[in-house]
């Protein structure tokens, strides 16, 4: 059986534990054994993004050692942003250090969750059931650093009962931006308001994304404006496998019969 090691970002560990649990569930259902290297903490991105490269470097080295030692076939992370840190920024941060070669190797083994499912595991239907109208927010790092656009949408389109809608300006940043949200709360929340309004305009019940940090920000804004729209991480949608309603079972049976009939003819 193939094995993956989960990289659970520090804030997911502390603030969105269900995202990690749900990701593990989906990965197992897709035929992987799942490991969580417990020595992991943070990839160093908050310090790196704030200019504190000296502070980020030892954490990057530590990360490279921990995951470099893992015998897993791949490392999977429920955040495009933290995946970006390891894949795209470690090479800059560790340039010239003795860890540079290991970091380069690690960069080829780490994947954002939806990217892993679609590109590596080559699964688009994970057997999920989520009978709701859902819009997808393109998280910036997933979109512009990892170039993931269709992967999460592909997964959502294969969820039973899910009605996928695009929201206007789906590629515009939600305004989270890590420490940006606390350094410039007025700008960040203004950007979040636009995102929230666009989510509402889409008619979606849920906004989903690859990145729990964007969702936490959007959620805080949505609830503040008493919006009916809720946020949910992609992994948590894909983890839902409530048995399909009877009507759907019947229609599926009819589909199957129809298909069988076609083959017979």
């Amino acid at each position, binding site marked *: 059986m193939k094995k993956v090691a989960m990289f*659970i970002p*520090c804030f*997911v*560990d*502390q*603030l*969105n*534990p*269900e995202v*990690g*649990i749900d990701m593990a569930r989906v990965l197992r259902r897709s035929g992987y054994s799942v490991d*969580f290297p*417990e*020595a992991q*903490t*943070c990839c*160093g991105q908050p*310090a*790196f*993004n*704030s*200019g*504190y*490269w000296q*502070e*980020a470097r*030892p*954490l990057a080295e*530590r990360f490279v050692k921990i995951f470099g030692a893992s015998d897993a076939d791949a490392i999977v992370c429920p955040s495009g942003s933290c995946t970006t840190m390891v894949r795209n920024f470690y090479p800059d941060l560790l340039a010239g250090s003795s860890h540079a070669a290991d970091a380069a190797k690690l960069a080829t083994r780490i994947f954002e969750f939806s990217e892993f499912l679609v590109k590596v595991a080559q699964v688009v239907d994970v057997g999920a059931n989520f009978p709701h109208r859902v819009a997808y927010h393109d998280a*910036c*790092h997933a979109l*512009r*650093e990892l170039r993931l656009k269709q992967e999460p949408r592909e997964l959502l389109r294969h969820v039973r009962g899910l009605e996928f809608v695009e929201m206007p300006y789906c590629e*515009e*940043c939600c*305004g*989270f*931006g*890590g*420490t*940006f949200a606390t*350094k*410039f*709360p*007025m*700008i*960040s*929340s*203004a*950007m*979040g308001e*636009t995102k929230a309004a666009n989510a509402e305009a889409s008619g979606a019940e849920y906004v989903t994304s690859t990145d729990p940090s964007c969702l*936490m*920000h959007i*959620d*805080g*804004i*949505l*609830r*503040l404006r008493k919006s009916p729209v809720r946020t949910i991480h992609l992994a948590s949608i894909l983890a839902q496998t409530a048995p399909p309603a009877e009507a759907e079972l019947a229609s599926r049976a009819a589909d199957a019969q129809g298909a069988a009939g076609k083959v017979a003819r």
Partner: protein
Amino acid sequence: MSTPAQEFLRNAAIKSADLAHRRTIRTGIDHYEAAVGRTGSRFNDWEAARQRIHEIKWEAINHLDRYLLEFETRLKARGGHVYWAETAEDARRYIADLAARSNVRTVVKSKSMVTEEIDLTHTLEEKGVTVFETDLGEMIVQLRKEPPYHLMTPAMHLTRAEIADLFREKLGGVESDDPQHLVSVARRALRKAFFSAEMGISGANFLVADSGMMALTTNEGNGRLGSSLPRIHVAVAGIEKVIPRMEDLAVIWPTLARSAVGQPIACYNTLIGGPRGPNETDGPEEFHLVLLDNGRSELLADPEQREVLHCIRCGACLNVCPVFRKIGGHSYGTVYGGPIGSVLMPHLGGLNKFQHLSYASSLCGACTDACPAKIDLHHHLLQNRRNAVRSADRPASERLAFTLWRWTMMGSERFAFFAGVARALLRAAYGLGLARTSLDPMRPWSRVHAATAIPAKSFRALWKEQRGAS
């Protein structure tokens, strides 16, 4: 007196909450994006065009010494004057002296950001010279006594009705807010200026080395009038404006027009090679080109950020920037706003003074994707931040916080323990109803967000339990 950082914070906060401003900008940007989408499809391969611009500018910037001298030699051979200005002060003095020497009373200016950079208009006005901005957008902001809002579309923040009111008050003869009519009102006022001016001042979009000509792009023809009707034409250009060959314009012109305003090509692309020649019927008697350094050489000396000099000032990065869309062009408090300004200003105006702009970004990368010269803008913001931590003033509390943060994160048990304590305290505080009060420990966050639910258990705790159970 407040610092530029404090002023930025204040102005940005006010503008971010200005819903009318937000709507005006959204409308403008929607038009822009639709136009860019339409013209974008005329390029067989947009990415190839970007790559070509990147290569042309790379070649020019990395051989600046050679191409600038080639340009100068050829321009001088046709009777143009070239002045190398090391600082803004040098450039201002040269132009003001020239104006005084030539008894210039009236100047017509076409749109130029570099003349804003050296604050030329105020200098000339102090010497008693009347300066007319002749680009419609620039004219509007000049009448409002405002700096340009945007480096390509200076009056983007104003509605048609606001412009009609302004013209009614300042120019008269306004009958409606129909754009055609407003343009004709402006044109009437400007024609007089064009015919009375002794000096025309322009920027230069490109300096073509192999022909010794400067290229000037406008959509209103004002640059062409201002550079040919008055007796003297002065062009000011940053040293990074040089390009190697005339043929490079074949890709640069359409790319600039698309990125700037979503046009296939701009209405007026003019090549100027010096003053009126012996057998020529029009053109100025004197032509002066001021080559401005003003900090650019230092940027050139930095191999990591040298490519910032590749900028062709199209303004695309501003248009796509979600921060710019909220805070607007004036909040930056700098000549160059938006992402390119945030990258550039620490180099032109000092890292300590302008480092805050590099932090005022969510690092979304939309600017980098939009840049026709493929400047890695958002990564340069990261480099500016690193440079700021290395050599500028950062709050002692921030430095301490990251030292403590690093220590905590260097051990997983340490991290689990301290994060667990923080979570327990926060849950207790929220249990007491302190969420979103002044006693909320997450105050900077919860001022603008509903309180975040804090889970009782971390992922690693849940994982251990699950493993124990299975």
